């Protein structure tokens, strides 16, 4: 499916749950609400014409106003690509796990939980694995984080 067909197909099949975003100049980017996430992902994975069976990457982001979690999907059979983004409030950020759809999401979600402090619901193994065992300085990837070993380089 070409990009335009894909956007049109998604526009007509997802009842407005996915909104296309301006930033998607290369692959189509869609925004989805946190509560619709699992349902949408399941449909993206199962739909005969979409078949997004491969989760490339799952990344968290802190924009200083809100958290964003983005999912980059590829269909290995139909060779098309799609990026999803979920925006979360700063307070009590929580997201549903998608690891029952793509098993590879497991570690990525763990990482998001560990470095951003975004809680992952229904995750089977939320334990620390990147930071060292005695870590007690909070969530280092947040923008307002300031650890003792972290020197902010001057603005240019």
């Amino acid at each position, binding site marked *: 499916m070409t990009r335009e067909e894909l956007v049109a197909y998604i526009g007509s099949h997802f009842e407005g749950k996915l909104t296309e975003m301006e930033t998607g100049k290369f692959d189509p980017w869609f925004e989805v609400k946190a509560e619709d996430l699992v349902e949408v992902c399941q449909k993206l994975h199962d739909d005969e014409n979409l078949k997004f069976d491969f989760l490339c990457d799952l990344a968290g982001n802190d924009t200083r106003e809100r958290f964003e979690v983005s999912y980059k999907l590829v269909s290995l059979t139909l060779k098309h690509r799609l990026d999803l983004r979920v925006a979360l409030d700063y307070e009590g950020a929580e997201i549903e796990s998608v690891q029952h759809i793509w098993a590879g999401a497991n570690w990525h979600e763990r990482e998001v939980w560990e470095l951003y402090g975004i809680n992952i619901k229904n995750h089977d193994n939320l334990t620390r694995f990147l*930071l*060292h065992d005695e870590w007690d*300085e909070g969530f*280092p990837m947040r923008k307002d984080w300031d*650890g003792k*070993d*972290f020197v*902010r*380089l001057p603005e240019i």
Partner: protein
Amino acid sequence: MGVIKKVPYFLEKFPGGGLLATNLEGILSHAQASSMWYLLFGTACCAIELMCTGASRYDFDRFGMIFRPTPRQADLIIAAGTITKKMAPRLRRLYDQMSEPRYVIAMGGCTIKGGPFYYDSYAVEKGIEHIVPVDVYIPGCPPRPESLLEGCLTLQKKIKSQKLTDWHEK
């Protein structure tokens, strides 16, 4: 310490034994210097250069250096690559498991002072001298095999210049 280290002290009790002890000292440190078995310890980029130095073109084996997988049988730990805070206790433990006399080469910028991660990495140990005593520092990111060899030769020189009294301290 091995039994043989007590021999020079024993020899010095006899007339003329001092001369023998000096010769023995030379032989012992020469033996140490010419058969440094290094521990296969590589964490990051420098490990690849360490591998290359062990391989055909640079060939560590010329200096009698072969790798040992277990710290018990190693004389030298070449800390190749970034040591993170999570890895630091393991490095210390490996060092503790090695048998005396033991030496440490800090290979690459990361092990010297944190390298490119000095200012703003929350996870990297800024220099391994906080963890283990270092004998030779080799700068570079990563150091070329030639500079690693140079570092090993420097360590050989250091070992050869050791006196019997140093062994107690080490």
